[in-house]
């Protein structure tokens, strides 16, 4: 069985109340690791749900971003918030930073939003 590690790299077994007591646990120690999400994506695929797998792979990419940025992208995707160009730029930026799946979602949205009048 593969060892489970937190985003910080710490093994899950080390994350105990005792470790909290000695101040060794931070929030990054309690965040899921992208490799874990990739493993779960493979499991979802094997159980006939490629859409769930795709979602988990987008999630694996998003582990790289801080909370504020994740929320900002969500806000940008809400109706009437962004121009097609803004969404396309954001997509390009995500792509270069190693988030190609999230970038693809934004690119698709930019196109659809423009056609359906959902852009700013």
């Amino acid at each position, binding site marked *: 069985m593969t060892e*489970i*590690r*937190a985003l910080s790299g710490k093994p*899950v077994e080390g*994350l*105990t*109340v005792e470790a*909290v*007591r000695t101040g060794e*646990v*931070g*929030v990054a120690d*309690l*965040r*899921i*690791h992208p490799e*874990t*999400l990739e*493993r*779960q994506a493979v*499991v*979802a695929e094997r*159980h*006939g*749900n490629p*859409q*769930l*797998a*795709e*979602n*988990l792979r*987008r*999630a*694996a*990419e*998003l*582990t790289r*971003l801080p*909370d504020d940025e*994740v*929320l900002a*992208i*969500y806000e940008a*995707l*809400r*109706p009437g918030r962004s121009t097609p160009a803004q969404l396309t730029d954001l997509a390009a930026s995500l792509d270069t930073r190693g988030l190609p799946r*999230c970038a693809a*979602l*934004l690119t*698709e*949205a930019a196109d*659809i*939003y423009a056609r*359906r009048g*959902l852009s700013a």
Partner: protein
Amino acid sequence: MRGLTSYAETVSLYGTEQVFTDGDDTPWSKAFLTSAYASRGMKMRVSSGAGAEVLMAGAQGRSMLYLEARCVALARAIGAQGVQNGGIDGASVAASVPGGLRELMSENVMAMMRNLESCSGNDALMSESDMRRTSRTLPIALAGSDFVFSGFGSIQRYDNMFGPSNFNAEDIDDFLAMQRDWGIDGGLRTVDASRLADVRREAAEACRAVYAHLGLADFTDEHVELAVDAAGSKDLGETDTLAVLAAAQAIRQRGLTVVDIVAALDECGYCHEAERTMAFARARLSGDYLQTSAIFDEQLSVLSLVTDPNDYAGPGTGYEPAPSRQAEIDAIRQARGVADLRAEQAAFAVPLLRARGPAGPGQGPRDVVIGVSPAVGRDVWRCLSGLAVTDVLREMLAGLEEEGCIGRVVRFSDSVDLGRIGLAAARLAGSGIGIGLQGKGTALIHRRDLAPLANLELYSVAPSVTPSLYRLLGANAARHAKGGTPDPARNPYSDEAIEARYHTTVIALMELERRCMVPGALPEELSLEGLT
């Protein structure tokens, strides 16, 4: 994002573009949000259901089922693991059209057909009619949905800004009985009241300690005391709304996380709670909880479509409760047995009806025997009507005396059958007339030359018989003894569900009678002391 929760729901999907936009989202923003939750290890399910688009004036002439079909397809497409549907807040809208409840069930079936977690949606009270709201939920429970309720409502009606749930905390005893009636696992269990009080006290005290430790608020002893028993906000006394705001602001500004909570619990001596909270935080790291239909069991192991696949393939297949779980379902708190009834009867025992020796045949023409069943004066002291057996006998003896007859009380221990007891009493009586009385209060008048099942007058509805009716029975027995004309009683008509309410008690009372039975035992004369 601060690890304070492991699960998110009510991420709404809608069936038309207009309503989606009015809800300030798009399928793409919701798809992103779905991934965002997963990126922090959080389980999430989307919500949709009949009536939402109609209520938001954007159904565009489509049927509720069609619009929901689009929502379920979208849920699968964006990679959500599951759907909370089945009307939800719009259930009453679906219920207003023909076949509406079939539509609600179809929503759940569509989620299952897409291989998604189906959370069947207890959320909104569909109707104020107890029968209709039960009719709405029962098929879901019988079919064995993953989650009959997305959360059995425990919020008082006045506190629930969404409106009360279709089943709410005040229905818990009925729901537990429904589980037991059908032998199904509806997800709930009976908890001992003292255990509940202990858990609530511990929770209230732990919350107070954490709030105080983190400098968020100071709750008084009185407030904690109120919280232990409170059903809703009205039971908590005056709310200091400013304190609530200040605490909320502090949590936000200081960026408190689950690590702070664990540390606070630990330092305040709530070690078990600290360990448990830490275990939940660790569980988010494994991601097993992100798969379809995942729940934690009591050891925090994950059960999901992956670890515990759905093997339903028609009636008689799929999930069956394990024997231990079935026993839990069966053990509802209102269940009573023979031992309970024996104790209840013993509480009414009085030092009367002492056995005086063998009963002989009576000589006088005015001698009437009241024959009582084996447990009378032993284990049975109170009739189904709530009258004491001794009071019943007092009335009968008084009725006999009013008409100039002399009553005796004789216990027949060789039969529990009222016809046989009455006939045996009649055969012992000098007048040839006897009264039979079972401990539960059923009574009749018998004559020595009749067949056991024939009788002169019968009070069959024991729970409704009154003292004056028993007196009348005594008087009528005397009239028969004298060859006069009786004045038969009218049946005591009642709206009570006599059978539903008393049959099981009758069975237990008859068991007490049966255990006192001695085949071939001779009749015993009982003392009239205190009865006349």
